[in-house]
């Protein structure tokens, strides 16, 4: 399965397994966007995730969306910000 990791206007599609931990994801994201895992904070909705949790424990499913915030150079964390499309983005017919 995959998850969509979003930060501002960027979305990373990431192939994952339910047994993967949040730390595993950060490492994979780090390879793709050149950011050390320690400078990443992942969110599900507005809930911050901890490194040891697995996707199965969190109830994350295929095509689910996670948020990403990065640590700024001054050592503080940026706010979680995800830019949304104007058109309906889930693409699912009502």
């Amino acid at each position, binding site marked *: 399965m995959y998850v969509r990791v979003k930060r501002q206007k960027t979305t990373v*599609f990431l192939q994952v397994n339910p047994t993967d931990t949040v730390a595993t994801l950060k490492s994979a994201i780090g390879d793709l966007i050149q950011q050390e895992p320690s400078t990443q904070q992942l969110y599900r909705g507005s809930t911050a995730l901890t490194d040891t949790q697995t996707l199965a424990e969190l109830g994350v499913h295929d095509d689910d969306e996670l948020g990403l915030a990065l640590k700024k150079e001054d050592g503080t964390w940026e706010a979680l910000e995800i830019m949304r499309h104007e058109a309906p983005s889930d693409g699912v017919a009502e």
Partner: protein
Amino acid sequence: MSQSDTVKLISADGFEFIISREAAYVSNTIKSMLDEQGGFMESETNQITFPGISGAVLERLCQYCYYKVKYLHTPSTAIPEFKVHRDMALDLLMAANYLDM
């Protein structure tokens, strides 16, 4: 997965999508653009901008690429429907036609 296994697709309104090369190759247009023999600049940067495709449509197309790869070897009766929002159907159809997927 390393950076060279992925491609970055950029929409007209500046949304960026990083997807696996395997998924991106569902589109024959993208596959040709990234072919090293093709001589496109995109094959060096692994980054393609689509001035005619919105972020909402491009994200749905990326989801379709993963859907197609996932169910490639599944009997057609066992494949769940890929739902399309009515308001997006025409734009999606035109973009998918352009991308040859």
